[in-house]
C-alpha cells in the first residue's frame, strides 16, 4: 500500500435533490496538511459531512478510499473508529452527559474496534489530564456536560481536545477557527499542530489565512461550486488573503 491515506474520486453528493458536490478529486497522504478554502456555499462543509457519513447528504457518484477501505460503504461510527475525525463547526450540546463519560465511551469503542481492552478508570483519567493540556482545557470543563453552556471558544477547544483523545489518522477540521478571538485561535491552532505527526493527516477547512499562520499547509485547495478549481502550495492562501477569490472564480466561470 502506498502512503495514500484518503483518495476521493469524482465525488458527487446532493441534499434534498440539489447537487452540492459536483466531482471532487482529492488525494491526502500521511504526514500532510491540506487546507480547503473557498467562498461561502462552495461545498466545503458538505465535503466534510459527506466524508464523515452524515446521512443528510446522498452520494450520487464517485468513490472514496480511506486507509484501504471503501469509506462510503461504512457506517458513520466505523469511519470514526477507523480513525476519521470531524471537528465540527457547530458542536452540539448533549445535556446531562459529562464530557468524561462521553469520551470514555468514545475511546473504548475505538479500542474495541481495534481489538484492544477498554481503558481502566485510572488510565482513562490520566489520558484525559494529558490531552486536556494540549488545548489548555480546564479540567472543570471535562466534568461538565458535553458543550452545554460552553462559550464559542470553549466549544472549539473541546473539539480539539476530543481529537487529541481519539488520536485520529485523518482529522477534518470544519471552520475550527470561526468565531475565535486571537488567543483562542492561537491555542486551538497550536493544539492541532502539536497533534500532527508523520503518520497522520489533517484537512483544514477555513475561510481565513490567519489559521494557516499556525497550521502551515502543504497543499491549498480552492473549492468552488462543488469542485476543486485550483490547487497550490501555502503561498496560495496568502495570495487569496490579499486578492480574494475573484481572479480564480472569474476564470472558472468564464
Amino acid at each position, binding site marked *: 500500500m502506498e502512503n495514500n491515506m484518503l483518495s476521493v474520486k469524482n465525488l458527487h453528493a446532493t441534499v434534498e435533490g440539489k447537487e452540492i458536490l459536483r466531482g471532487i478529486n482529492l488525494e491526502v497522504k500521511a504526514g500532510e496538511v491540506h487546507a480547503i478554502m473557498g467562498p461561502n456555499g462552495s461545498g466545503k462543509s458538505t465535503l466534510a459531512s459527506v466524508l464523515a457519513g*452524515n446521512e*443528510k447528504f446522498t452520494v450520487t457518484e464517485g468513490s472514496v478510499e480511506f486507509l484501504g477501505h471503501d469509506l462510503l460503504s461504512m457506517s*458513520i*461510527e466505523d469511519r470514526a473508529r477507523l480513525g476519521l475525525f470531524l471537528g*465540527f463547526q457547530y458542536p*452540539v450540546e448533549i445535556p446531562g452527559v459529562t464530557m468524561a463519560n462521553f469520551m470514555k*465511551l468514545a475511546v473504548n469503542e475505538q479500542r474495541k474496534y481495534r481489538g484492544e481492552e477498554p481503558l481502566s478508570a485510572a488510565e482513562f483519567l490520566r489520558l484525559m489530564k494529558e490531552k486536556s493540556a494540549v488545548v489548555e482545557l480546564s479540567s472543570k470543563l471535562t466534568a461538565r456536560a458535553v458543550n452545554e453552556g460552553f462559550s464559542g471558544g470553549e466549544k472549539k477547544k473541546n473539539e480539539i481536545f476530543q481529537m487529541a483523545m481519539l488520536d485520529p489518522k485523518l482529522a477534518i477540521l470544519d471552520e475550527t477557527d470561526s468565531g475565535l478571538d486571537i488567543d483562542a485561535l492561537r491555542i486551538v491552532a497550536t493544539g492541532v499542530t502539536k497533534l500532527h505527526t508523520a503518520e497522520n493527516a489533517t484537512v483544514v477547512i477555513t475561510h481565513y489565512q490567519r489559521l494557516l499562520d499556525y497550521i502551515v499547509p502543504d497543499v491549498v485547495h480552492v473549492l468552488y461550486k462543488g469542485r476543486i478549481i485550483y490547487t497550490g502550495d501555502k503561498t496560495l492562501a496568502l495570495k487569496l488573503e490579499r486578492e480574494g477569490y475573484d481572479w480564480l472564480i472569474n476564470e472558472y466561470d468564464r
Partner: protein
Amino acid sequence: MAENEKEILENLGEQEYKYGFTSAIETETLGKGLSEEVVRQISAKKGEPDWMTQRRVAAYRHWLTLEPPTWAHLRIPQIDFQDIIYYAAPKARKTLGSMDEVDPELKRTFDRLGIPLEEQMALAGVAVDAVMDSVSVKTTFKETLAEKGIIFCSISEALRDHPDLVKKYLGSVVPYTDNFYAALNAAVFSDGSFCYIPKGVRCPMELSTYFRINAAGTGQFERTLIVADEGAYVSYLEGCTAPQRDENQLHAAVVEIVVERDAEVKYSTVQNWYPGDKEGRGGIYNFVTKRGLCRENARLSWTQVETGSAITWKYPSCILAGDNSVGEFYSVAMTNNYQQADTGTKMIHIGRNTRSRIVSKGISAGQSENSYRGLVRVAKGAEHARNYSQCDSLLIGDKCGAHTFPVIDSRNRTAVVEHEATTSKISDDQLFYCNQRGLSTEDAVGLIVNGYAREVLAKLPMEFAVEAQKLLALQLEGTVG
C-alpha cells in the same frame, strides 16, 4: 468435605422441591369474581381480626358505588372485575436447578443490567445457593433491624404481631373512600409490606436488597404502609430493574407513608412490569395510589423510574400538613411501543413554610402516550409556601405523544409557585455527533436519554442508579434508526 457440601446442597434442593410440591397441592383459590362473601373469605383465610374484616367490607361496599376514573389521558380497555381471581394462596414458584435452566432472554437482560449473580439466581428462582444466600441475608438483616427496634415485615405478619400500629395507621393517609382503585385495594389486598421506624432511629441500611429478592413474588393488590416516627429516617426501595412478569393483568397497589415530626422518608421505585409486546398486546395495567403525610419539619421524597406496564396510572403525592415540611417528587417515566403512562404528583401545602419540588422527565418513543399530571395546591393557611415544578418531555420519533397537565391552585397570597416545562427531541445532529465519535446509534440514544434523566437518576440509591441507567438504554433499543 466437598462431598459433604454437595450432599447438603442436594438435600436442600430436594427439600425445596418437596416443599414446593406440597404447597402446590394446598394452594387454595377462590373462584373468579368479587362479592362481599369473597371479601369476607379473604379476610378469614388470612386470619384477620374482626375490625380488619369490617374495614374490608366497608371498602367493598363503597367501591360498589364508584365508577373507574376516566379523566386520565389513557385509553383503558373495559376491565371485567368479575373475571378476576381475588384470592390465591401464594403460588409456589417452580424451582430451577441451576442458572442454565433460566430463560436465556431473561439471563441476557440480567447480565446487561449488571445484576449480581446471587440476586439473578434469587430473582429467577434458582434453588440451593441462592436460597441459602437469601436466607442468610434475610437473617442478618432482620437481626440488625430488630436491634434498632425497626419493624419490617409483611402486612399479614404486622396484623398478627403489631395490630395496634396497623389499626392506627392503615388507611389514615389513603382512606378507602379516596378513589375507585384505592377502595378496591382496601377491600381485597392480598399482602404487602409494613415498615415502622421508631422515634429517633435512623434505619442503618437501604431497605432494598431484601425487598428486591422478595419483590419478584409480589401480588396484584399490594398494600404498603411505612411509618417513620418522630425524628426517624428511612430510605425504602420498591421494585426491581429486572423485567417482571405476572399472570395478573390488573394491578392496583396502595402505598401509604406517615412521616411524623422531624422524620424523613425517601421512597424510590423502579417499575419494570411487563409492558406488552411490540404490537401493544398484553402488558400490565398498573393503577397505583401512593401518598404520604408529612407532619412538622418532616420530609418525604418520592423518586420513581417507570419503564414498564402497558398502562400506568400513578400519582405519588405529599400532604404537607405540618409547618416547614418538605415534599419532593422526582420522576422518569418512559414509554415505548404502545405503552401509555399518565403519571405525576400532588403537592398539598397545608402547613406554613412548606416547600415542594417536582422534577418530571417524560420520555416517549414508538407509538406511546406519556402524560404528566400534577396538582400543586396551596391552602389558605399555608403562609409562605413554595413550590418549584419542572416538567420536561423528550420525544423519540414522530409517532409518540407527550402531554403535560399541570394544575396550580393557590389560595394564599404569600405563596410562591413556579412551573417550567420543556419539550425536546433527540436531534439528528446529536446522533451524528455521537456517531462521529464512534458511538453506535443505540449507545448514543441511551447516553442522551440518561443525560436527560440524570437529575432524577442521581436521587436513586447508588447501585440502583447504575442499573436504572442501563435499563433506560435497554428499553430504548431499536427506537431510532
